[in-house]
């Protein structure tokens, strides 16, 4: 089992272009769980370890494009605080809820998206933020919105020869926030999550829902209502109820050992209402 430590993306994608079974390893917080639990690494399998590719572990704010470019292997800890937290608070809030400090020191947004769990905290934020995944292969590169890249539970449109190298997140003015429900106060997998991003400049908002469907869901019907309520201060109980109902209809949850479908549907509506309420308060505070 050769382990390769490419030092740049070119080398990595060349390795991925070769035949044969392989695994990509970055933070290890998902892949190593599978290996420890018996998904044995095969004889001829190659491991492509991304830890030495500095490009994947750095981020930059491209002010000309208004885009935050985050390397796919930047660990959660770095996303949860500092400058990124100021530029992109919802991603930071989501990052802070991932696992434990140990997990946040290792796990990455790239891994979260590639794993494609509907409970992925970072994935939910990435969808609400309209993040675009930059994907490289030996054949070239392509840019795919995260919302389109993830196609189902643990399913993505990534080819075996492809690598997510970064995410481009268009920065917006306006409230953004992430909230999730878990049965424990820390180190818990979301049983319902929601991320709201209000783009005041374009007069739109995006609400992404986690853990209530096969993948992260958007709320195309609720979003215009949310925008209206927040930007036009048309909020009242009835309007909020309408949003909650709409969000709950958008949810497609299942029953499992973590929660019932009924509860997940209920909870995601509550989270949506709270995020919208927080957005309204934040706007009022800014205006005073």
């Amino acid at each position, binding site marked *: 089992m050769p382990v390769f430590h490419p030092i740049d993306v070119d080398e990595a994608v060349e390795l991925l272009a070769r035949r044969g079974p392989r695994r990509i390893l970055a933070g290890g917080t998902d892949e190593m769980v599978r290996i420890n*639990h*018996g998904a*044995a690494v095969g004889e001829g399998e190659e491991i492509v370890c991304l830890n030495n590719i500095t490009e994947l572990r750095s981020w930059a704010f491209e002010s000309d494009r208004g885009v935050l470019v985050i390397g796919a292997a930047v660990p959660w800890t770095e996303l949860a605080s500092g400058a990124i937290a100021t530029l992109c608070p919802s991603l930071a*809030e989501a990052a*802070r*809820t991932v696992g434990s400090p140990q997990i946040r020191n290792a796990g990455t947004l790239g891994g979260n998206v590639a794993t494609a769990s509907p409970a992925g905290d970072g994935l939910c934020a990435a969808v609400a933020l309209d993040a675009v995944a930059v994907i490289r292969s030996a054949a070239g590169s392509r840019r795919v919105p995260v919302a389109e890249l993830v196609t189902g539970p643990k399913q993505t449109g990534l080819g075996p020869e492809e690598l997510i190298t970064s995410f481009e997140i268009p920065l917006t003015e306006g409230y953004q*926030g*992430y*909230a*999730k*429900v*878990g*049965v*424990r*106060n*820390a*180190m*818990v*997998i*979301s*049983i319902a*999550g929601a991320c709201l991003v209000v783009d005041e400049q374009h007069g739109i908002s995006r609400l992404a829902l986690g853990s209530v469907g096969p993948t992260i869901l958007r709320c195309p019907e609720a979003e215009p209502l949310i925008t209206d309520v927040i930007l036009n201060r048309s909020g009242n*109980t009835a309007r*909020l109820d309408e949003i909650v109902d709409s969000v709950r209809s958008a949810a497609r949850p299942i029953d*499992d*050992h*973590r*929660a*019932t479908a*009924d*509860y997940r549907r*209920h*909870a995601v509506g*509550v*989270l949506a209402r*709270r995020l919208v*309420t*927080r957005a309204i308060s934040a706007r009022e505070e800014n205006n005073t």
Partner: protein
Amino acid sequence: MSDVIAATRERAVLGTSPTRPDAPAKVSGQFDFASDLTADGAVWGATLRSPHPHARIRSLDISPALAIDGVRTVLTADDVPGTNSFGLISSDQPVFAVDIVRFVGEPVAAVAADDPETCRRALEAIIVDYEILPALIDPEAALDPATPAIHPLGNVVRHQRIICGDPDINGEVTVEGDYEIGMQDQAFLGLEAALAIPDADGTGIELQIATQWLHEDRQQIARCLGLPEESVRLTLAGVGGAFGGREDISLQVHACLLALRVGRPIRMHYSRSESFLGHVHRHPARIWMRHHADRNGHLVKVEARYVFDGGAYASTSSAVLINAVTHTQGPYRCENAVVDGYAVRTNHLPCGAMRGFGVVQACFAHESQMDRLAAACGLDVLEIRRRNAMESGDRLITGQTVTSVAPVRRCIDETEALPLPDKAVGHGDHPYSLPGGAGLTTDTTDVVRGIGYAVSIKNLMYSEGFDDYSTARCTIENGVVSIKFATAEVGQGFVTLAGQIARSVLGVDEVVLEPIDTGVGSAGSTSASRQTWMSGGAVKEACELARDSVIASVALARGVEPGQLELLGTEIVDPIDGWRIAMTDAIQGVSVNEEAVYRHRPTVALNELGQGACHTAFAFAAHRAVVDVDVELGLVKVVQIATAQDVGRALNPISVIGQIEGGIAQGLGLAVMEEIVQVDGVIRNASFTDYLLPTIADMPPVEIALIEEPDPEAPLGAKGVGEPPTISSTPAIVAAIRDAIAQRHPEATPLSRVPVRPSDVVDAFRGLRPTDHDR
């Protein structure tokens, strides 16, 4: 006891909190837990388990596994030289399944191979052809005589009634309820592990094992191996927590069988997921209770029906059941009772001992009932408990008289007097101050604060006529005092206490603790809150014999009567002739070897009507919980727990506090998050990702009042302290959640099951008209 109390406080004697002797090794990673042990030439063992809750084994083909390079042996039921069954009370569980498997995880075969990976491949290679049988998963159905028996011993493990006083009497006020308790896991962090080393001639074996009871293990292992007990020697390996989950046999017999077969040491470790299948759990239970009282709230009668789901094999189900039924009344006076309890067999995971042992389930029900009764009588929840509080000398519904010190009222009063949290809902800006924690789930406005109380009674030591004893030996050679016992140190701190006892009794400061193994008589189990009392009593008596022996030799040398001398602190003093000699000097050149066996007073089995003095002693505790509940999402943040506990005497206050805080954490876990989920007999959350334990962010500060009224029946005045914190903390938290829910809507359905899931809170409001609070 006067000599003990007279010991000076500066020394590491009873009543002080010396540091643990094993702590330096534990903090530096040098302490060997069972999973850290290895031996030259060791190979690995692993277990093949049933994937089905109930199935017939049509055929079992081990030959593909034996053909794998590196596989040393594969064992099945045919290879068990002794009895192919074990069990703590009834020997009803096969070492390896024969014909039928009865739960998901039942061992079918074991392999030994050169490394864990080869073991894994060998397990995969074994071909088992199963014919799936209908699984019995409803414990009520198990009671139906028409249901086919899933075990030759039948589906009802034990039925116990209690009829006390006038069964037909009724109270002016009655309240009733149905309650449900989910299956909790002990979830000790140190997974099951053992090192089995066969004797060179193959006629005996040494087992280094993390267990709660070396001698009981030895007895069961020897029977299965077909060896005399003296050929099976057990040494306690480092134990990473136990909580009842190591009282039964798990991998002990398998490891020994493999070692004897391959003639090499065997290392055997469970993974976390295997551990969930490999040890017994806390019984899930359904309980109905009806309380009768007069209009002043004085209890007139309790009625109850219990159904405990014991899973596929008996383990300690019968003892757990009688603990529950005999604690139906709680720490309250009650003269009339009609109780029916069943422990049944199903195709679920086997259940047995876990901290609280049946009383956890009973207490959740009776404390929920006491709150209902208070409401029905228009009384405060504490007032109704005070009016009924049990006292020493009261008769229980079993007819047994409580002879223990019973400061129930003090527990209640002192709990109430402890300070409440000084901060309002959602103080500070850290998300951990609110329900949902890091998830930024909740805003202050969504939260209602609730307060709840619960009080408990718990029996200490073994019951129903069990010959319960502990052994200790004190030797003095070459001026060195050594203590030997077989008491399993599972983390509770008996190793600290043993030294304190020896120092107090003997007046020396240096005490050597010998290895914990079967080289001395049984200590009984580290369970039932019994080791401080039982092994503490044995160590005390052994040390007293040794002390008297030293004094006698000093007296002989000085030509005085031994009765003329007394030990004061660290010196033997002759008050008449006016001389003194330091104990450390007195033991030089003296050779002493004293062994003591401590027994508590005998108990009797319950008769058919549930009458009999079946328990030894009792301890009491009260808990107050303050919780912040996000009533809309059903999320709970426990803000504070306050407790006053009847400890008899705090022999090591820091250890006592550690037991109280740790026990409460497990009670909190059962209250709001811990449950093994089985669907159609298959466990769905056998991992720490999905079986949630409280983290440091979930555990609140604990305010503690230790009630020290030394119990004259206890050898050191001290009661066991391990279990009470786990028992009434759970119902206190649930009462607090109910309080919060009721503040939001007085007609909300009271919660009746633990753990309280978020959906249970949400459902409590189902169908109600919105109140002013609701947006």
